[in-house]
């Protein structure tokens, strides 16, 4: 866990229609590092701890989006998932709910707003895990009496503390508890 990227800044765009994938990817490239995938398999292969947000089409030919979301959750990846749908009410009952849904065709403003919000959530969660891992390490140092790395660790902890407070400033507390306690959103899309 200590090895996870603290800023999972990569956006992974996956749509069965390469033209749509590339259009979405190019609109995000100004601001973010973007990867693309054209199948569910490619999407799952491309996932790692650097990916903060995955945008997937709900009509990939080789796997439905709910199953993709399930597989992402099962791998305990921190990335946030946005499903592009033709109908916001589709596949509500099946599998793990995504973190966001956008109805196609997606406007640029809507896309950018959603990516920014999901990236904030992913980044907060990644930093929180790092903060815990370092707090744990600092605690074991204190217990063993070894003090050499303590000052370095304290600096890193203080930086993370400030960054977490910044991130929480942009999240409401219900959302913050949801992300921190890692319990998927329940039920219907909003």
């Amino acid at each position, binding site marked *: 866990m200590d090895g996870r990227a603290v800023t999972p800044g990569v956006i992974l765009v996956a749509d069965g229609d390469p033209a749509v994938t590339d259009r979405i990817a190019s609109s995000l490239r100004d601001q973010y590092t973007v990867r693309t995938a054209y199948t569910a398999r490619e999407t799952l292969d491309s996932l790692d701890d650097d990916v903060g947000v995955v945008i997937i089409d709900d009509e990939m030919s080789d796997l439905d989006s709910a199953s993709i979301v399930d597989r992402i959750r099962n791998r305990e990846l921190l990335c946030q998932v946005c499903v592009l749908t033709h109908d916001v009410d589709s596949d509500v009952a099946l599998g793990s709910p995504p973190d966001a849904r956008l109805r196609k065709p997606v406007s640029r403003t809507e896309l950018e707003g959603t990516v920014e919000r999901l990236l904030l959530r992913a980044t907060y969660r990644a930093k*929180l895990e790092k*903060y*815990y891992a370092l*707090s*744990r390490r*600092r*605690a*074991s140092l*204190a*217990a063993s009496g070894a003090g050499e790395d303590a000052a370095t660790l*304290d600096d890193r*902890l*203080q930086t993370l*503390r400030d960054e*977490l*407070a910044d991130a*929480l*400033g942009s999240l409401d*507390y*219900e959302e*913050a*508890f*949801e992300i*921190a*306690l*890692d*319990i998927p959103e329940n039920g219907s899309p909003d």
Partner: protein
Amino acid sequence: MSTKANAETERFDDVSNVLLLSSSMSNSESEACARLLDDPAGAHALFCTFVESPADRLRRSGIDPGAFETTTVVDVESVTRSAAADGVAGDGSTFPDGEARYHVEPVDDPTDLRELGTTLGRFLAPVSGDGRPLFCFHSLTDVLQYTGVETAFYFLQVLTDQVDRAGRLAHYHLDADACDRETVATLEGLFDVVIDLRDSDPSVQDAEG
């Protein structure tokens, strides 16, 4: 870098989150709790209790709930207690005229920290009043019994941030003998100040150091 000061004289003007370490519910714990809930005139008070009933918890804190502008008790685990344990005549939950002296908000599932956090959050929102809003959480010992230290840590990271933003003075009880030293040390960094009541001479440590 930690500073030590006498808990009796320490002021908490610039402090939001205080960890109260004790070995058991002793006199010094009640005294420290009461001190952190001092000066209730015009203040809004929020309590969170697990094992004890709201009435018992308020009595233990040694405060008069009617002295606060508003008093709310978030009552976790109430279903596991006898229904007769609370709200009986003469338990102090009502004024002589029958009006409630404090509001009780139940949270049924002690393992559901998301629900608990969201419920506390509703009452932690900034409030207007003459005094500084206060918050007593009793206790982290219970949270750790229901969830692991990692989950408790994440819960507290959000909760303490919210307390700080709302300008509250909060304190959190933890029986340090009920968990290992490393758990206590891991949690300490989340708080502005740690008061260790296990020492005969109570000390205040700057946890940020």
